[in-house]
C-alpha cells in the first residue's frame, strides 16, 4: 500500500474494516427483509399479478385461527426444548466436570449431534418414531411400557419433536457450561468449605452465579434457534397431524411454497421475526442485570 493510502486507511480504519461485511449485510440481509415487508403488503398468488392491499395480510393473520395455532406451537416447542436443554446441559456439565481418561473423546462425541446434517438425522428419527415399525416403540415394549404414537399423535407430536431438538443441542449447552464451570476458581469452594457450607449450598451460591453469564448466552442462542426451528419439523411431521405440530415457520413455508400465497406468507414471517426479536430483547436484558 502506498504511504498516502495507508494513512487514509488508518484514519478511517474503524469504518473501512467493517465496510465489506456491512455492504454484504445490507445487500443480502437487509434487502430481502425489506423486500419481504414489501411483499407482505400485497396479495400475491405466485404466477399471478401482485395487488397492493396495505395491511390486509396482517389483519387476516390476526383473525386466522391457524396463525394463532402456529404462534402457540412455536412457543410450546421452544418452551419445552430450551428449559430441558438448559437443565440437562447443566447436569451433564457437572457430571463431566472431573478428571477422567478420554476427555477428548467425550468432547468429540458431544459435538456430533449438533454438527450432523439435520436433514439426515431427522429422517432417521422419523424412522425410529414409526409407531408400528420403529425402534423406539420396540424399546418401550421391551421394558413393559405401552407403545406410543410419538409424532403420529396430535398430543405428543410437539413433545416428540422436542426430543429430537434436545438430543441435538443439549451437548452444545453442556459444552458451554462445562467451559464456564472450569473457569470457577477452586479457592472460592475452599473458602466456602472453611465456612462450613455443604455441597448444595456451594452449588447454589458459588457455581450458579459464576456460570450465569455463560448460561444466559447459551439460553439466548438456544431460544432464538428453537423459535426458528424448521428442518426437523418439516422433515418429520410437515406440521402434522393436521396442524398439531405446525409452528409459524412451517405454516409460513406451506403458505408460500405449497399454497403459493407469497403475500400472506411474508406477513406471517414478519410476525415471527417480531416474536423472535421480542424474546431476544427480553433475554438480553437478563444479561445486564447485576449478578
Amino acid at each position, binding site marked *: 500500500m502506498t504511504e498516502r493510502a495507508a494513512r487514509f486507511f488508518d484514519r478511517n480504519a474503524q469504518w473501512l474494516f467493517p465496510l465489506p461485511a456491512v455492504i454484504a449485510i445490507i445487500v443480502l440481509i437487509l434487502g430481502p427483509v425489506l423486500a419481504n415487508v414489501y411483499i407482505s403488503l400485497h396479495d400475491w398468488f405466485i404466477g399471478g399479478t401482485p395487488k397492493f392491499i396495505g395491511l390486509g395480510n396482517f389483519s387476516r393473520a390476526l383473525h386466522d385461527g391457524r396463525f394463532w395455532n402456529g404462534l402457540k406451537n412455536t412457543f410450546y416447542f421452544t418452551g419445552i426444548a430450551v428449559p430441558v436443554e438448559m437443565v440437562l446441559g447443566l447436569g451433564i456439565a457437572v457430571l463431566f466436570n472431573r478428571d477422567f481418561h478420554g476427555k477428548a473423546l467425550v468432547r468429540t462425541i458431544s459435538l456430533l449431534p449438533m454438527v450432523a446434517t439435520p436433514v439426515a438425522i431427522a429422517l432417521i428419527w422419523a424412522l425410529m418414531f414409526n409407531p*408400528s415399525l420403529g425402534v423406539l416403540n420396540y424399546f418401550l415394549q421391551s421394558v413393559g411400557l405401552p407403545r406410543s404414537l410419538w409424532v*403420529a399423535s396430535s398430543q405428543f407430536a410437539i413433545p416428540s419433536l422436542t426430543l429430537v431438538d434436545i438430543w441435538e443441542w443439549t451437548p452444545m449447552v453442556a459444552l458451554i457450561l462445562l467451559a464456564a464451570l472450569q473457569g470457577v476458581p477452586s479457592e472460592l469452594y475452599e473458602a466456602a468449605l472453611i465456612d462450613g457450607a455443604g455441597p448444595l449450598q456451594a452449588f447454589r451460591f458459588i457455581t450458579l452465579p459464576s456460570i450465569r453469564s455463560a448460561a444466559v448466552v447459551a439460553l439466548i442462542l438456544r431460544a432464538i434457534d428453537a423459535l426458528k426451528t424448521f428442518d426437523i419439523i418439516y422433515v418429520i411431521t410437515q406440521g402434522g397431524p393436521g396442524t398439531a405440530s405446525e409452528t409459524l415457520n412451517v405454516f409460513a413455508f406451506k403458505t408460500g411454497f405449497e*399454497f403459493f400465497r407469497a403475500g400472506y406468507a411474508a406477513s406471517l414471517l414478519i410476525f415471527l421475526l417480531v416474536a423472535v426479536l421480542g424474546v431476544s430483547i427480553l433475554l438480553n436484558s437478563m444479561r445486564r442485570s447485576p449478578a
Partner: protein
Amino acid sequence: MRRRLIGFLVVAGLLFATLSVASAQQFNWQKYSGTSIRFLMDQHPFTNFIKPLVPQFEKLTGIKVTLEAYPENQFRQRRLLEASSGADSLDGYMIMPGQVGKQYLDAGWVRYLGDYLNDPTMTDPNLDLNDFFGGALNTFKHDGKLFGLPLQNETSILFYRKDLFKQAGIGRAPTTMAELLADAALLKKGNTAGFAMRGKGANATSQIVNFLMSFGGDWLNADGTSALNSYQSQQALAFYADLLRHYGPPGPTNMSWPEVTSLFAQGQAAMIFDGNVFRSIMEDPKQATQVVRDNVGYAPLPAGPAGMKPVVLVWGLAVNHASKNPGAAWYFIQWALSKANQEKALLAGVPAACTSAWNNPEFTKTAPQDWIDASQKSFAVGNPNWNPPVVPVPEVRDAYGQAIVAALEGKPVAPALDQAAKTINQVLANQ
C-alpha cells in the same frame, strides 16, 4: 449452348424444389438435430424407466436432452416457479392435469399440440392417439384441444392377504363397503391391522376421494361451492374413520403411502387400499417378506351405496408454452410415449395408459391376473377428478385433510367437514 445450360438449370431447380417439397411432406426425426432441450420430471418410476433410454433418442434425433428430476413437492415448486416466470430454458415437464391442470391452463403455461398433430411433418405416423386410454387422453384435452400425452394411469385398489383370508374363513375379497368392514373386523388380530389406508391429512385425500364418490359425494356443488359437508360426504368420512379407528393400525394420521405400503409389505396389515402402482413393492424380495410376496391378492375398490366409483390419477408430458424449442420438446414426448416404449414401461412396472401395452402377451404372462382385472375394472369407470377442478388445489386438499385428521382422532365428523367446506369456500372466493 447457353440455352441448354439454362434449361438444365431450370429443370434441376424444379427437380430440386419438388424434391424438397416432397421430403418436407415426410416426418423426419432429424429435423431438430443440434438443439438442446430440458424437461423437469418428478422422481417417479417412469423417470427411472426413461432416463437410461435417452441416449437412444439423442442418437435418433440429434437432440440433446436433459431430464431434471426432483421429489414431488420440490418438483411441483420448481415447475411452478419456472413456468410462471416464463423461463424459456424449460421446454417440457411431467404434469398431472388432475392436480394443476386448471391452474396451468388458465395461466396459459402449457402449449396446445393441435398444430403439430395436424402437421404430418411434425408427428410420427406411428403415433396412434386411439391407442391411448380414452379417459386418460381426455384429461389432457381442454375444449377438445390436446395439450399433452398421458404416460401413466394410476388407480387405487385393494391389496389383501389371501392366506389370512383363508385362515379367517373368508371366501373372497370384499366387494362392498359393508363386507370390507366385516372382513376387517374378522382380520384384526394382535399387532396385525385388519385394514390400513392413508390418514396423513392432505396426502390422504387422493385415497379417501374414492370413498367419497362411492358414497355419492363429490367435491363441488353445481354452483361451485364445496360439497364436502354434504350428507353423503359425512357418511363417507364417518365410515372411513370408524374402519380405521377400530380395525386399523396405530397412528393412521401419520400414514402416507410409504407407511401404508411398508405395513403391508411387512405383514402387519391384512388389507390396504392404495395405488396399483405399488404392486412393485409387494413383489420385490428386497422390500416385502416372503409370506407377503407369496400371498398378496388384488381386488378393485369395494362398492359403496352409490356404487364403485374409483378415481384415476393420470401423469403425462406437456410442452412449456415459453419454450424456445417446442418442436423438439414435442419430438421427445412422442418418442417417450411411443407404443414400443409404453410396452417396455408397463413391463417395468409403470401402469402405462395405452391399450396395446396391456394386451401385450409378454405383459399378460408376467402380471398377476387379479391385478390386471382390478386395474382394468377401475380404469373403465375411473373419474379423473381426484382433485376438484379448481386452481388452489393444495389448499383445498389441506382443508379436507384437516377434517380427515379430526375424524381419525374421534372428533365429530359433521362440524369438521363444515369447517373444511367453509375454509375451501373462502379460498375459492379469494381467487
